């Protein structure tokens, strides 16, 4: 018995950049065989983009750090889907696959003749995922708008909610919208697989990037309708907790985050920072008063944190039963004792790009874990397996496809 939940699933991955590839990466780590079907020109596949290849780490198209992170544990086969022969091979592959995931802009798949309606003729119980930026199908005036993840945060309201109090809108660090939508896709695919298992029925799933961001700030839309007040950015403060902020500690750019959720917790905080009289002060007596006077509290707390390291401040506060956390940097994650105990990063040796460290699956499972420690594929690394072993093409056909540029082993110029 295998220990992987999706070991019976084969996925054809036509995705680019981050949102789509991360979704199939999660499924690959859960045991699915994910075949990245790459266009013959390496350039368009996210092997080059925001992140350039690193010099001295193999052939440039195999040395893109972001590609090598988000495509771990997958196989790569090159195939020109614009050619009749490429389409035929794709359809043959489709007939022995369970899921197709794509995140092109909405016009691309129909233009290639690979819309869901066409693909289901080949595989009637196909599960197909598309990831439009703005709307499912061709609904709405923005349906054909193009956007990368961060741009959908702006339209969804998350940028307006993020920022310093009174300052301009900001945005989450990173590509939050992409990764958030990717996890929704991974969830949706497993829901659809279970649906198919129970009914025999496939379907075309559309996960709308902008909508996934709206879904994780859903309560804000209800708050506005109920109160008439428009929720907007409030820096590190909180709608009802106070104090709730980051405070400077000893050292450069060194901070501790503190959040107080109850009167009892505030009493413990005032003990911890050796200011017990604060708990008796009518300005801070209850949650509403503290919220009203939170600006006056900040200097009292800061006076205490400034002479301590982040770690000292966090440990002292937590010992007193106060919510507190050192603001770790990305570099701290590899030395912090708690992160070491979680053991959740995925250390991988890539044959050309060398050693890398990546996020793994964010949970521990008692029976079915993930297949971590597997690098991203080199360009077209698995052409022989996919075309030969899976599709049964004789070697001379594979050579001809390679030479004709339909399934090259080196990317071609555009």
């Amino acid at each position, binding site marked *: 018995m295998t220990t992987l939940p999706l070991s019976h699933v084969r996925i054809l991955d036509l995705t680019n950049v981050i949102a789509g590839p991360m979704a199939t990466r999660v499924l690959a780590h859960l045991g699915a065989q994910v075949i990245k079907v790459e266009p013959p020109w390496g350039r368009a596949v996210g092997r080059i983009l925001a992140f350039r290849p690193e010099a001295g780490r193999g052939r440039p198209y195999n040395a893109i750090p972001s590609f090598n992170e988000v495509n771990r544990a997958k196989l790569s086969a090159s195939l020109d889907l614009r050619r009749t022969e490429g389409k035929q091979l794709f359809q043959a592959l489709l007939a022995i696959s369970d899921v197709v995931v794509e995140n092109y802009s909405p016009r691309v798949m129909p233009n290639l003749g690979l819309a869901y309606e066409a693909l289901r003729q080949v595989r009637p119980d196909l599960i197909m995922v598309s990831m439009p930026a703005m709307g499912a199908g061709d609904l709405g005036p923005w349906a054909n708008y193009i956007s990368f993840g961060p741009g959908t945060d702006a339209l969804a309201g998350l940028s307006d909610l993020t920022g310093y109090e009174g300052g301009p809108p900001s945005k989450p660090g990173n590509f939050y919208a992409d990764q958030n939508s990717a996890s929704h896709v991974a969830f949706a695919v497993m829901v659809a697989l279970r649906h198919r298992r129970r009914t025999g029925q496939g379907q075309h799933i559309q996960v709308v990037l902008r909508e996934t961001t709206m879904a994780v700030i859903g309560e804000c839309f209800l708050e506005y309708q109920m109160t008439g007040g428009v929720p907007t950015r409030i820096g590190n403060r909180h709608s009802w907790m106070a104090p709730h902020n980051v405070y400077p500690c000893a050292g450069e750019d060194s901070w501790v985050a503190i*959040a107080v959720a109850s009167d009892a917790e505030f009493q413990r905080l005032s003990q911890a920072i050796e200011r017990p009289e604060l708990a008796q002060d009518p300005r801070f007596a209850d949650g509403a008063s503290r919220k009203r006077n939170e600006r006056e509290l900040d200097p009292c707390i800061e006076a205490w944190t400034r002479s301590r390291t982040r770690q000292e401040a966090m440990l002292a506060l937590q010992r007193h039963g106060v919510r507190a956390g050192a603001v770790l940097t990305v570099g701290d994650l590899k030395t912090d004792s708690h992160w070491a105990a979680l053991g959740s990063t995925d250390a991988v040796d890539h044959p050309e790009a060398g050693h890398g460290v990546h996020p793994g699956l964010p949970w521990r499972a008692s029976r079915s874990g993930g297949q971590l420690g597997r690098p991203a594929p080199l360009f077209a690394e698995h052409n022989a397996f996919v075309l030969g072993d899976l599709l049964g093409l004789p070697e001379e056909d594979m050579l001809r496809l390679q030479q004709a540029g339909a399934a090259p082993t080196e990317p071609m110029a555009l």
Partner: protein
Amino acid sequence: MSGSALDDICVVDLSQGVPGGYCTKLLTDFGAQVIKVEPVHGEATRHVGPFPAGPPGAERGALPLYLNGGKKSITLEIQSATGRQLLCQLVQRADVLVESFLPGALAGLGLDYPALQKLNSRLVMCSITYFGQVGPYRDFLGSDLIALALSSYLDLTGDPDKPPLRTGGSQAEYQAGLNAAIAIMSALSYRDDAGVGQYLDVSAIEAVLSTYDGTALLTMEERTGHAPKRRGTRLQHRDPHAAYPSTLLPCKDGWVHAHWSPSNPEGLAFLTGNPRLADPEVMDELMGHADEIDELLAAWLKDHTRDEVMALAQEVRVPFTKVQSIDEVLEDPQNQATGFFVPVEHPEAGTLRYPGSPMHMPASTCRTARAPLLGEHTEEVLCNLLELGADDVLRLRAEGSI
């Protein structure tokens, strides 16, 4: 034939707060029967607001209204022996148990996975915490802000000369819930094959770390020795050859998100009519010219409104979008046309428009339903599922167990 993917799945949800709430919301949306087990006075999110004008009310908070739609609510005091016994009976009939207590709390009540597994070997039990069940911080008290701090996400958001900045909403908590739902689906898939359940330990800080996928932050830190830091609204990568812009810039009446696209590299020059934006010197080192690009774009943007910028840019396939506030999002023409917000009536909160599911799955019915009142289904669940009599329910009510 079954109408949805999970309508054979019964979830007992002991969790409090956003993480478990969003996790079981996702399962509810695709047909699972979720029984939310609340203390007699209601779970935490019922008491924290925001509330509409007037006194706070356990039935009128925005969070429980949003997160609990379609779930059943029963009240049960698991601190009492009777309550625990009823919970065990529920667990015997359940497929999934979700909980969010501090590590060890359920073990103290005799309700940890080894004990519950003996009652139901097919049970999938998922613990969702801020810091996980292992490691020196496991007993720490957490919150969304604290989880963002200890995952390093806080350090990546905000301006370089200002303190680290929280992302709007409760994103660490939502990511914890979302990844718990993925973990549960994977365990159900495993169970469909192997016939046995298992225990899942999901943490918010690891869920936040999983959102670094595809940005290579850990690898680049390891290779260069420099930790990526917050850079305002620019991406963390400082390589002068990296793509740019992906940033927020002011325009005539607000802010827009400006983005360069590799499939339309000269789009910025075309949009603004400024050839410098397609100059090979700039194009070769986009990030290296970030300040200049900002200036050139700002000069064009100041004469155009958000709507004009988005329409003009999208017309020529340049992926610019506008920054909208929450009230604008609710009414924007795209949401009007797609019907993403669905009106739902609730006996205490009235009719409000709720976000629908971002996952459009035509074959798997997705429902948007109202949240339950506190304890609304206690009697139904105890009588129908546990087959208690009406007099048993009266007695339990009298002794305060339910």
